[in-house]
């Protein structure tokens, strides 16, 4: 083997391997004759399989983060430079897996019975392979891996958006999603091919070093532009955001929840890694100008995305569309912060900015999960996703109304909730970087967003209910909503523990794979390889 791969390197991908095994089991086990009857009887075995696999992934990711036994995060890129498993990547992965676990619980309590029993294995394997792709996005450090991870996250998402085959909306949503996704990934690939043509490598670290040494090039410009299209599609950044509300409305609600957080967490982690690696090596004055230019461009995209999302949310009457625009706006805030990262390497540690993002991801996952969980309960009970159904919710089920109010206010950024501290930390980082215009944009956007976050609350409190029937909620849903409420308030009232966790676990590694050509494998000249092939053939 030319590129050797040791066990300790393979073990760093243990969380992904757990998911991969579960995907294979979910596809194969239901067609094996002894097990077929069990899987045809109910969805429960598959749900249990998914939960076990995700728990195994979470545990192995936590073990890697803590460095238990042989599971230690390596200080260099593994698998020949394809992926970096550093603390930041592992933290994002834990958030993604935990969120996927809650999505599976949401599915088993709300919409599971709409999925036919024969389709259950497909559904579970699609969700798990989507989570696999998203977690690879968080640690990709080679542009081939970036492309593979984005596609591995996208393909299951296309299929899941259209999983509800009987409905018109679902099929239209998946059509729009797949066309926009295919076009944006094709444009990204054209940019990446130019990057390869100019630099002769696809590894992120050597490219960043060359950029620092040589400054601007046409290849870099086209490559970064293509990459931003590809990542911007996953994050629903503004020129390519319009799939987001349609897909969120058309897909069933737990898929919407999945796409709104897990997919965006993976994409923002990828953007952060690329921007920070470029910034880490920017020593020369010439390179700094270019990187500040790229950072400003990304920040500007973030500002436009946040503003657009907040303004378009004004007219929404469907709760899923409202939350879709809200998630566009929040993606915009995160892109704004990512724009800082190219310039932030001189005067502060990279963890200083990365931790703010990690903290924000935790808060964002909690509040979005909660809002979508309440919306899914109401959609299931009333059969409609219109905001009119929220009229007088306080009288029909006070817990749901109070919880929804808390989640919406946290999304707005109300003090005492986690959303407030997330935005405050963003604002401080932007101010420290001297990007005062980003701070202004953040504040103005927060003020804008107050109206549409208050609209459902006003409807819930002051409008008369159309029906006085009490809403029944499954106990597990109470658990999920209570967990999300706990997350929102623990990060809001006592932000220090989660901040400390985020600070401790926000380290990124900027190092290529060690060069194996002269160590274990001997020389890599053509003659040496030919000689080795001869000796191996002779044995």
């Amino acid at each position, binding site marked *: 083997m030319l590129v050797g791969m040791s066990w300790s390197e393979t073990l760093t991908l243990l969380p992904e391997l757990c998911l991969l095994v579960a995907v294979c089991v979910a596809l194969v086990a239901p067609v094996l004759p002894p097990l077929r009857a069990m899987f045809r009887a109910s969805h429960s075995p598959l749900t249990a399989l998914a939960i076990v696999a995700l728990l195994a992934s979470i545990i192995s990711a936590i073990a890697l983060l803590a460095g238990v036994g042989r599971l230690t995060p390596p200080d260099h890129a593994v698998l020949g430079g394809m992926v970096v498993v550093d603390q930041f990547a592992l933290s994002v992965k834990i958030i993604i897996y935990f969120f996927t676990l809650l999505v599976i619980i949401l599915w088993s309590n709300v919409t599971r019975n709409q999925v036919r029993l024969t389709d259950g294995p497909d559904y579970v394997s699609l969700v798990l392979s989507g989570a696999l792709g998203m977690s690879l996005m968080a640690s990709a450090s080679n542009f081939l891996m970036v492309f593979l991870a984005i596609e591995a996250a996208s393909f299951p998402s*296309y299929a899941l958006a259209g999983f509800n085959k009987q409905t018109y909306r679902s099929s*239209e949503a*998946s059509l729009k999603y797949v*066309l926009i996704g295919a076009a944006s990934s*094709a444009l990204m690939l054209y940019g990446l091919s130019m990057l390869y043509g100019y630099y*002769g490598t696809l590894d992120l670290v050597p490219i960043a070093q060359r950029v620092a040494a040589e400054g601007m090039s046409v290849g870099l410009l086209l490559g970064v532009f293509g990459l931003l299209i590809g990542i911007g599609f996953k994050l629903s950044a503004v020129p390519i955001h319009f799939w987001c509300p349609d897909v969120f409305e058309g897909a069933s609600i737990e898929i919407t929840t999945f796409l709104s957080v897990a997919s965006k967490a993976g994409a923002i982690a990828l953007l952060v890694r690329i921007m920070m690696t470029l910034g880490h090596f920017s020593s020369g004055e010439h390179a700094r100008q270019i990187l500040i230019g790229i950072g400003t461009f990304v920040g500007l995209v973030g500002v436009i995305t946040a503003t657009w999302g907040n303004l378009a949310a004004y007219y929404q009457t469907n709760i899923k569309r409202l939350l879709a625009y809200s998630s566009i706006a929040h993606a915009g805030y995160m892109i704004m912060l990512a724009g800082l990262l190219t310039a932030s390497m001189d005067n502060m540690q990279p963890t200083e900015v990365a931790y703010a993002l990690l903290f924000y991801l935790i808060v964002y996952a909690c509040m979005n999960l909660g809002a979508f969980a309440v919306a899914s309960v109401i959609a299931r009970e009333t059969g409609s996703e219109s905001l009119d159904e929220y009229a007088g919710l306080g009288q029909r089920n006070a817990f749901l109304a109070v919880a929804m109010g808390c989640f919406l206010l946290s999304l707005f950024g109300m003090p005492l909730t986690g959303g407030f501290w997330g935005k405050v930390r963003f604002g401080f980082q932007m101010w420290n970087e001297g990007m005062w215009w980003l701070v202004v944009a953040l504040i103005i956007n927060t003020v804008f967003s107050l109206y549409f976050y208050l609209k459902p609350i006003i409807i819930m409190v002051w409008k008369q209910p159309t029906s006085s029937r009490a809403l029944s909620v499954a106990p597990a849903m109470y658990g999920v909503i209570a967990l999300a409420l706990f997350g929102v308030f623990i990060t809001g009232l006592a932000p220090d523990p989660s901040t400390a966790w985020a600070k401790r676990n926000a380290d990124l590694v900027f190092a290529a794979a060690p060069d194996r050509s002269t160590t274990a494998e001997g020389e*890599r000249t053509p003659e040496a390889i030919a000689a080795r092939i001869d000796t191996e053939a002779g044995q």
Partner: protein
Amino acid sequence: MIGLGHFLTLSAILFGCGVATILTKRNAIGILMGVELILNAANVNLVAFNRFSWAGEAVAQGGVPAVDGLMFAMFIIVLAAAEAAIALAIFLNFYNHFSTIDIERARMLSG
């Protein structure tokens, strides 16, 4: 002598055709064809850059010819096939509901 410039010109033409197809076609399969044209433009780029720029350089430095670009092109071909499979399944489902795959008809969701 055919050199790198010729291949880059070919890929630029393919890219232009692909973008024009995506922007003008109203048929979903037509758009998918445009996407495939762009993907193949990227493939031509990768293979040509690998052949003319980087394979030789690695040998000159005393290594084996670099194959990064070729590997990337292979992955693109495989994933383009997977993408087409998913896209066609979704188009078929759309056709079952709307009896057409004209994307102008996809306007139930808007706002």
